[in-house]
């Protein structure tokens, strides 16, 4: 499942996408992210899946543009910690 967490508002599109077929629930993103964006647990969008999966927590979903700002400076941008930490490459950002 392609899970898009985030939003579109007047200023643009801000989505973090998790491919739950790739995600193995290891939790590496949870420890890598300085903003506390991720959580790992039961998939609330797929009650019949048994394995844990990464999700974007409810408190973070509506403000990721602001939370992720420090990881996305205008200059000298490094690879995003979450994307880098995820071995199966399940995470991507829309902006």
């Amino acid at each position, binding site marked *: 499942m392609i899970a898009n967490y985030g939003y579109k*508002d*007047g*200023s643009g599109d801000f989505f973090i996408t998790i491919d739950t077929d790739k995600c193995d629930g290891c939790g590496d993103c949870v420890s890598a992210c300085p903003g506390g964006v991720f959580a790992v647990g039961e998939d609330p969008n797929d009650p019949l899946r048994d394995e844990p999966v990464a999700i974007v927590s409810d*408190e973070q979903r*509506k*403000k990721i543009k*602001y*939370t992720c*700002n*420090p990881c*996305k*400076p*205008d*200059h000298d941008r490094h690879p995003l910690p979450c994307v880098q930490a995820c071995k199966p490459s399940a995470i991507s950002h829309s902006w």
Partner: protein
Amino acid sequence: MITAGIDIGAKTVKVVLVEDGGILAKSLVLAGIDTAATTQQAFDEALAAADLSKEKVERLVATGTGRKDCALTDREITEVGAAAKGAIHILKSCRTVIDVGAEEGRTVRCDENGKVIDFAFNEKCAAGAGTFAEGMARALQVPLEELGPLSLTSRRAVQMNAQCAVFAESEVVTLIHAKTPRQDIARAVLDAIASRIVSMVRKVGFAQDVVLIGGVARNPGFVEAMKRSLEMDVYVPEDPEHVGALGAALAAAE
């Protein structure tokens, strides 16, 4: 040489007349339906205040969101350039200008000559600028000018979850129903705007001194919220909403 800077914003039109770096007069008029008429009125009021005829003004420069449609001026500069020029004229040590208007929040980093190094915007979403506070004041049933002073009496930080000006209004109503003290809600509202502005500021980085301009800088509660969020002092000029127009007038003299 006498020059004029005209700042056409979303809610107001500001004019500053400058002679050799000194301010002669300022005016501020609420934007009406007809921007051209409002602009003319603001210009006339500034002329009257300085007791000048319009022929005495050698050059005019426009700035602000409506600068492209200004019939009075020969030239325009961006809000970013105007903010930097105006702020550094007021405070030589200024390196970061944060400009919060009704519909837009802006941050500008500049060098000691007022040259722009970097900038960023919060725009097109009412949650990122002053308009956010307007709706909330309405929901709280306090005049907008009283929102700031009210927030300063708060002793407790409460969290607002809504990140949208429309949804936040309902949240304020819910908080009132839950008997949350109004001053705490007022503070939560201003903290929410400040945190979004500061997140943008951190994206481009900032250096001291920080000058806070734009109409929202008149709100003492917002200034406190900015200080808390930036964890440093900020300088607010006497007429924070006129700094852009001042910058434009100074640019006209160059």
